[in-house]
């Protein structure tokens, strides 16, 4: 009930207890992940055997820390490369598509707009297998026709980038269009009157105005790419990004090195998320 309406005291306390319990529930899994990154034990489990930094800096098996674990470092590098390309492609297409839908009228605009939103409602696994089917058939056909090899169309990082881009571009478009819609076009007209070329006006007036949205979209795209699992799982080849590498280890059971990676991921994504949120506030 709202504060303006009197409530029995017991009910108010019960209510507060519920809300508090909810936030404990939200925090609990992340807290245990972080805490066990510092436990001097081969397993992420109680009892507490004392504090250690081995899961970060240890260099001797089985006490191998993140910073010395080649598998993890390699996977991290792959994830970063994928995130970079996905983010660059999504933001570029996001900008052009935002201009298209906000500034132009053309036939089938509504149909295309709905089609552009569809990736949001396609389950990630399905998006992954559909692209897998398409590219495999294309590769088979091309190889039959030309006798050459088309490894880029076989499961691997190119497909992972394409698969993630297919739905992350929608988010980038929505974020950038939202800001473009608020842009006052008379500013651009003023630039044109002062002798700017149309492209110059867009570059010097509109794009700087869009900058917070573009940076925000880039950060969100990177975060989504880094954390994506479903689409990546279906398209991945022999080079595993971090989520896939961690998933494999989780299934087999692993040392708390996983907790250490997770802790670093939580920190990194909090910073990214915080910056993205601050950018949104600033708008």
């Amino acid at each position: 009930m709202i504060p303006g309406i009197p409530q029995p005291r017991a009910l108010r306390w019960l209510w507060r207890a519920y809300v508090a319990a909810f936030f404990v529930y939200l925090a609990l899994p992340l807290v245990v992940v972080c805490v066990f990154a510092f436990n001097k034990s081969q397993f992420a489990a109680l009892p507490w055997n004392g504090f250690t930094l081995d899961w970060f800096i240890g260099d001797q098996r089985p006490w191998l820390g993140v910073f010395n674990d080649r598998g993890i470092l390699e996977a991290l590098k792959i994830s970063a490369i994928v995130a970079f390309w996905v983010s660059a492609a999504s933001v570029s297409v996001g900008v052009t598509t935002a201009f298209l839908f906000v500034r132009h009228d053309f036939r089938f605009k509504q149909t295309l707009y709905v089609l552009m939103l569809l990736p949001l409602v396609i389950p990630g696994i399905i998006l992954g297998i559909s692209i897998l089917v398409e590219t495999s058939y294309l590769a088979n056909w091309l190889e039959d026709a030309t006798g050459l090899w088309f490894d880029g169309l076989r499961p691997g990082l190119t497909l992972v980038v394409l698969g993630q881009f297919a739905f992350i571009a929608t988010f980038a478009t929505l974020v950038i269009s939202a800001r473009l819609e608020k842009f006052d076009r008379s500013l651009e007209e003023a630039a044109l009157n002062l002798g700017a070329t149309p492209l110059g006006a867009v570059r010097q007036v509109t794009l700087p105005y869009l900058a917070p949205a573009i940076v925000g979209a880039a950060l969100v795209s990177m975060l989504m790419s880094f954390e994506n699992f479903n689409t990546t799982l279906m398209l991945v080849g022999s080079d595993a990004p971090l989520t896939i590498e961690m998933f494999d280890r989780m299934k087999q059971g692993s040392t708390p090195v996983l907790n250490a990676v997770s802790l670093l991921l939580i920190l990194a994504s909090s910073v990214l998320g915080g910056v993205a949120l601050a950018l949104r506030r600033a708008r």
Partner: protein
Amino acid sequence: MSRPAGRLTLILLLAPLLLWLTLLIVIPHAAMLFVSLRERVGVGEYAFGLGNYLTFLAEPLYWNTFVRTAWMSVLATALTLLIGFPVAWHIAKIARGRARQALFLACLAPFWASELVRTYGWMILLRESGVFSAVLQWAGLAEGPVEMLYNDVAIMVGLVYTSMLFMVVPLVTTLDSLDDSLIEAAYDLGASGWTILREIVIPHARPGIASGCIVVFMMSLGNYLTPILLGGKSSLWFTGLIYDQFITRFNWEQGAAFGFLLLGLSSAIVWAGLRLSGQSLRSAMARP
């Protein structure tokens, strides 16, 4: 701007969008539909037909898993709504000023961590050597280690946890726009808390409830990580079957048919949810 220049701009802006949508959305799904309609009749021989879909109906394991996945997703959606609604109410209507901002942030922050990390946290809590088991033994409530992982409750806990944000945020947004004076007026006229909830709050919050439910249902249905990691081998989740057909058994024809069934169910629910709440796809999908 002269006409030809405007036309050129339009074409240049359309090109990336069209390439993206045709090459990565339309053609892949058409290809998947095509493959799902191919039946293997012999070695390297195929015929067109609904055979893969008939196999789905003929094999109880397949359609049971399908129904089970759908049903558990409905349950997860309902639980997420029930658990999240009071919290959304608290943030929108009771908390004030900085406390409100802090609570909202506390709701968002856990979801910046990836689903994998969150699920790993639940594994550490629930498994046989896990935190809950140790605490129960320490408190004398259990004799030996208790395995809480690899069952339906564990899957449900994970699904509800992982979808919570997508329920709470749209709820807070719609509840926020509800005028407090309406509630006070109803109270002054003698309405009970239950009546106010039914007659004023829920009708007002309907768009938020609908978009929260649509997103949570869709995410649960298409989830792979949580059921596999928390439910183990016996999770019987439909996405697991799709993965098996594609990657383990290399039966793409059957896998593509399963994929289409899942896509069909997911789309039908989204469509029905939008129709029932009178919303457009865009407004329902406006995420945090």
